[in-house]
């Protein structure tokens, strides 16, 4: 297995290099210097700023230097937009992102699988149709609508009615610094639970339909008929036989989502003021902060590659029929 992993890593190195090359070239199509200096920019000020930002160096040298720093995980280059290093900008945003995306992923996956199972078990019946109708309705409404309504009613209106602030309209506090677990959970819930619930509502529609389709497909397989013929109870058929065989598409879906777990949920982070990776990446693009954009995208590319390899390994773990070669 290890030789397979090493081989896959080596195959992906050129892909990674090309991604970074294309990214850096695309970023530099428009000159960021004039925008940074605003409407009053003399030629001298533009030249000084270009030198300060390191854009006066040849492109290939900038590329090589970035790769060298990245290979050493050296993120000490200064951000162009903030009075911090790239590392100081990027790494503190990981926990806020995970505070939203991990609970949201876990919750939506569990709930969606259960609903998918219920719908599949009642295929064609009223309960199946009702659940799928709910899923479609959930998908039809824009993410932004949920966010705006969530803030207005979930945070503002609820607080007005109860006379106390249950959920924050926006903002984030580092809940990991609390020494008492209860305080940590309370702080997390105050700032993060509402975005998590919104995220679950939105993603559940897509996930439920997908898991239902997977389970329905498995439910028509021979081994399910055999299990039933042998006298297995419906619960045992669903959870022991069927769910295990449906794991490959489920794992694939979850693993595909993993890089987005790290990069966060852009809209949620922007609207709820959560200083996560998504917002960091968005801000860096908007503000033409190349060092941060390059670092985040390169990290994301590396995580994508790693999660792809990990997915293949997990296939072999959950399904003995899969051989890695």
């Amino acid at each position, binding site marked *: 297995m290890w030789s397979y992993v090493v081989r896959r890593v080596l195959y992906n190195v050129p892909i990674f290099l090309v991604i970074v090359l294309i990214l850096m070239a695309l970023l530099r199509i*428009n*000159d*960021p210097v*004039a*925008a*940074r*200096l*605003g*409407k*009053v*920019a*003399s*030629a*001298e*000020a*533009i030249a*000084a*700023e270009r*030198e*300060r930002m390191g854009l006066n160096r040849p492109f290939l040298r900038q590329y090589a230097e970035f790769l060298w720093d990245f290979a050493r995980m050296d993120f000490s280059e*200064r951000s162009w*937009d*903030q*009075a*911090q290093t790239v590392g100081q*900008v990027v790494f503190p945003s990981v926990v806020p992102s995970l505070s939203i995306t991990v609970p949201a992923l876990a919750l939506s996956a569990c709930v969606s699988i259960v609903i998918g199972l219920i719908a599949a078990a009642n295929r064609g019946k009223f309960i199946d149709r009702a659940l799928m109708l709910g899923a479609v309705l959930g998908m039809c409404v824009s993410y932004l609508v949920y966010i*705006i309504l969530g*803030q*207005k009613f979930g*945070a*503002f209106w609820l*607080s*007005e009615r*109860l006379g*106390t*602030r*249950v*959920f*924050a*309209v*926006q*903002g*984030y506090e580092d809940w990991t610094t609390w020494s008492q677990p*209860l*305080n940590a959970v*309370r*702080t997390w*819930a*105050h700032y993060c*639970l509402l975005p998590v619930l919104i995220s679950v509502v939105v993603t559940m529609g897509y996930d439920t339909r997908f898991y239902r389709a997977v389970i329905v497909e498995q439910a028509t397989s021979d081994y399910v008929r055999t299990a039933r013929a042998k006298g297995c109870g419906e619960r045992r058929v669903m959870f022991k036989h069927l769910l295990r065989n449906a794991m490959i598409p489920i794992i694939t879906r979850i693993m595909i989502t993993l890089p987005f777990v790290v990069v966060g949920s852009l809209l949620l982070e*922007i*609207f*709820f*003021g959560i*200083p996560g990776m998504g*917002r960091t990446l968005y*801000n860096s693009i908007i*503000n*033409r902060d190349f060092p941060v954009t390059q670092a985040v995208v390169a990290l994301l590319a590396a995580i994508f590659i790693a999660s792809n390899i990990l997915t293949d390994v997990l296939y072999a773990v959950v399904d003995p029929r899969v051989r890695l070669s």
Partner: protein
Amino acid sequence: MSMRTVIVACLVSCVVAIAGAAAQPASKTIALPMRTDGPKSLDPAAGSTTYDNMATVQFYETLLQVCYYDESRFEPLLLAAMPERLDDGKRYRFRLKEGVRFHDDACFPGGRGRTVTADDVFYSWKRLTDKRNGLKNWWLLEDTIVGLDAFKDAQNAALDAGGSFDYDAPVEGFVKLSDLEFEVVLTKPVFRFLWVLTMFQMSVVPREAVERYGQDFASRPVGTGPFVLREWVPKQKLIAERNPNYHACTYPEASLWSEADRAAGLADAEGRRLPIADRIEFTMYVPDQPVWLEFQQGTLGYIELPFDYFSQAFNPRTKRMNADLRRRGVGYRAVPQLDMIFRAFNMDDPVVGGYTEDRKKLRKAISLAMDLQEFNDAFYSGLCVVYDGPIPPGLDGHPEGGRVQGAPRGPDPELARRYLAEAGYPDGRGLPTIRFYTSQGGNNADQVELLRRQLGRIGVRIDVQLVDFSTLIELVNKRSAPMFSFAWLTDYPDGENNLALFYGPNESPGSNHWNYKNPEFDALYEQGVVMGPGPERTALYERMRDIVIDDCPMIGSLARTRYYLTQPWLKNARPTERFWSWFKYLDVDDSKR
């Protein structure tokens, strides 16, 4: 106990538990909003945006400051008295206030902030010449102080040659008389120099802190300001606490305030030591909804009311605040901006540029086809002031009632068609499609549709290019945009700042984006720039304004009015955007929280 009761009990417990996490503000703590993602740097020499300004001035101070009670004036801040004007304004003598100390910080011996001296002032201003700081604020002092331009060139050349930037090298125009007294010699008696001294980029910083913290100085402010930095989480929050060693500054006397301000209770804090609040907490807001909801929750001391929420707080027709907010004691202030929203022509363009009569007629025809009031009503809730020329309301040279006789103010499609025909394009025939550039942000996509429709009425066709702001600036700097649009917010309350945009030597990539060149205008500008306020200078400004209107390098203008809402518990609040150090005057009435 039924399952339903258990579930309800659990939910209520959760709600109570979570609600406990919302921190209650301590006394004399004021939560304030910062629209957008906040400052990028707390180093005055590196700052340029409104939000850099808003944050930096809490920690650093300038020699002069804009008066809270009258924004058209300035007063001493780090100075003991107003600077003495010598040699007909070519030389200024300054005396620093005694006992002004920098914040206590580890960069000083024993961690105790030392007294500010004349050397600190010279050092701070020299930092604007150091290209390692980006030179983005050099324009403030360029060609202003004797010897400073030469100092800049020599030191930056030394850097290029691998040497060092010598801050101790003398500048002829910086004359130290004692630790607290100094003179500055100007290249010419430029009146705006005193306004420039109120700008945050001119703040005084200690050399020890710059040298000790290096690049981190941008996030470790050590100034003389009313507050010291407690915490800054970029793009999230910034918390500042009272500077216990703040020099003797008091709230303005009652006699200085206008009758209306006194009636509003703004003079009640007369003589109180500043800062009044113990702590100010800025939160950054990018979307508009959270800031509006949090204000309604009573969390934020004040907000700048987003345009999109205007109709929720005010009757759009009568501009009267809604009953609910009035009942809650919310106050408001309409703050006119020193603003110029315009559509511009590149005067070097072969089609729309040029100074011949037919080119002027073409530009005037386009101007006459436009209805700025329709833009105002459609996109700004009717809150803008529409005016002729480049000088915004409130400044010398602004036309009375916003109108100038003979200005090509639309909509006047008949006259527009006549001018268009006289320019050689009857009903637009033969006129090539004009490429119009503007930035993608805001509601610009909708605004250009209105522009297209208005110009289409006289047969003028435009090819709209919505580009990002950097591309727009790049195209304008390269003179590649025949027609374009953005806004100019005046840096200091003097019409000269806007008229400088039409001064020939400032052409692209300078601030004269239209590349306008008129020898008569340039001569008048050079005459006006050394004059102090007075009827003679106002007449000169009006003449320059009328020349610009007649040559028509731009169509405009619109000046926005922002509405600020204040909580009943926030005292001494008189929101303004002319300067941002007014948070030191704010107080909290906890009984009204």
